[in-house]
């Protein structure tokens, strides 16, 4: 019941927003504790982080982008046309000058360790001094302390609302609030649909494990811990995460993971090849050939889901990921990679 009612209410309220007003400038947005002021809709923006980039493409703002950076995967096919016209400043983090040299009126950042107190690109104050507003995706700063732990530590579990907030705030900044409302409705709809598929199914004994990558194929893997985005995906679908660490991506020994014997294994697919284990095919080969992991139930019965690495991050791909996962959980069969 709660799901259907929520969907109805959401639909009603969002349809109300469909006739959203135009943005009133000057606009001040409170973003991660720093208010950012805009005198007009930005005409040139630079993104640091694929999630922010694709979010802006989803809002149809490709022609307002002056540069992109920090990519984990190839751009989604539906955005290729927009992306081809935008120069790529760097595959990894760009330099401060490269960003500023594009004279942006907005810089978005997917991670606080890109633009923040210890930002690899620069601090928010540095940009502010030049009159450039910065927008950090709320999912990386709300309820998270990025100065503790290698990837930051979540003080509270990740909330999907932070993604909707990114969408509506960016839509407001760029004065495309109607498109923002539509996008949020679409995303919300995907989430609800994913949940619906599993309604009525008994998932009390279903558990899962996310394997992102490993420094060396046989050494301890990076797996999803509690409170992060990947964990949220499991929580929202009603499946238990076998990893109990509260770090977002801890390393846990194979011995512990194998003994936990999760029902489902979710391995990340990415185009990056920094570690041999980045290649999902190598991960699958390892699981099937290692004398211990091949005895896991999930490996023996082929319950391994290959999921886009970007779907495990806070961005629009999260919702597609939820769709893939819920189909698999519902049918009991992993999709072909």
């Amino acid at each position, binding site marked *: 019941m709660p799901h259907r009612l929520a969907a109805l209410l959401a639909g009603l309220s969002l349809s109300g927003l469909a006739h959203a007003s135009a943005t009133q400038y000057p606009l001040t947005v409170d973003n991660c504790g720093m208010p950012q002021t805009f005198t007009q809709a930005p005409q040139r923006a630079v993104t640091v982080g694929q999630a922010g980039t694709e979010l802006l493409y989803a809002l149809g703002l490709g022609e307002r982008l002056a540069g992109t950076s920090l990519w984990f995967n190839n751009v989604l096919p539906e955005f290729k046309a927009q992306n081809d016209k935008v120069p790529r400043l760097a595959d990894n983090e760009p330099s401060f000058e490269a960003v500023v040299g594009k004279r942006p009126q907005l810089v978005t950042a997917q991670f606080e360790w890109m633009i923040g107190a210890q930002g690899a690109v620069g601090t928010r104050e540095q940009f502010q001094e030049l009159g450039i507003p910065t927008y950090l995706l709320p999912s990386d700063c709300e309820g998270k302390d990025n100065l503790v732990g*290698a990837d930051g530590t979540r003080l509270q579990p990740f909330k999907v609302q932070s993604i909707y907030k990114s969408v509506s705030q960016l839509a407001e900044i760029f004065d495309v609030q109607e498109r923002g409302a539509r996008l949020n409705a679409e995303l919300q709809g995907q989430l609800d649909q994913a949940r619906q598929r599993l309604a009525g199914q008994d998932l009390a004994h279903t558990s899962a494990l996310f394997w992102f990558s490993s420094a060396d194929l046989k050494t*301890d893997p990076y797996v999803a811990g509690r409170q992060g985005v990947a964990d949220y995906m499991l929580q929202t679908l009603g499946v238990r995460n076998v990893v109990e660490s509260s770090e977002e991506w801890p390393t846990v020994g194979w011995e512990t993971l194998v003994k936990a014997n999760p029902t489902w294994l979710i391995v990340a697919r990415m185009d990056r090849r920094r570690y041999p284990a980045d290649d999902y095919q190598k991960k699958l080969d390892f699981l099937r050939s290692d*004398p211990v992991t091949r005895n896991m139930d999930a490996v023996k019965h082929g319950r391994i889901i290959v999921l886009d690495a970007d779907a495990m991050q806070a961005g629009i791909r999260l919702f597609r990921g939820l769709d893939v996962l819920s189909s698999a959980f519902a049918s009991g069969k992993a999709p072909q990679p």
Partner: protein
Amino acid sequence: MSRLLPLSLFALLALCLAMLAGIAIGETRVGAEAIWQVLANQLWQAGHAVDPIDAGIVWNYRLPRTLVAAACGAGLATCGVILQALLRNPLAEPYLLGLSAGASTGAVAVGLFGLGGAVLSLSLSAGAFIGALAAFALVLLLSRASGSRHDNAQVILAGIAGSQLFNALTAFLITKSATAEQARGILFWLLGNLSGVRWPSVWLAVPVALFGLAICLWQRRALDAFTFGADSAASLGVPVRRTQLLLISCAALVTAVMVSIVGAIGFVGLVIPHALRLLLGPGHSRLLPASALGGALFLIVADILSRTLIAGQVIPVGVVTALIGAPVFALILISRRGRP
């Protein structure tokens, strides 16, 4: 001589017990009966019914890990003995010749750029090995170029210079190219990690450690002859240059192999030889096997601790050896204070 036989038996017994502990203790609980059954199945086909996951954990994860810990501990300790004997310096240890610095650079280069990744499928281990030997070659060249006589101070300085250079290279590579996640992964590996060890590593580590020990035992009298310096060794009939080159190359090779398998585990090569010298005196006939054994036991215990100190998490072995080794080293220094 009369003490030798019971001492050796005691030592071997201690080693066996430590290895059993290494198999029995781990991140998760595997019952003693299950362990016994797994070993029985593997060693004499007893045919017990054991959960395949437990069997796999004991035989394919924990046993190779313990064996490699023993081999690496023995190998690194032996190398420490060689370097302390040849360089006549109590601070000498295997990484002095630039080996661990070079290994970091090699591993980072492979890890960040997948150097040779697509073509050769170079793993971090191979990168570390090549990097270690490259750094060693540089250090040798530097020490040769700085003087025709094999002066110990020059070798040490060349080692420091080489290490600094490769450490700087590593830092440069990391700051230029790595994400925080990548850097963390590589540095974790470099601090010493036995997690990825399987049977193939055993077939490499154990023979190499035994080979290194054998060469040193063969040269034990020559090592003793260096007690009063290289000139003294020469006047006692030791072909100094040849012996130094043989033993240092042997030490470099053994260390490079060990570092490439498990990362740069510190303190074993420095502290174990000292501790055993305090107990047994400087004679290499006893010091060498004792150090090898001591190193093996030390690293097995350190590995067990690294897996069990914090529940559900593995601490890098290098951190544990430092935590134990540093206070022990301090004690050694203090105990020497009374000496003239």
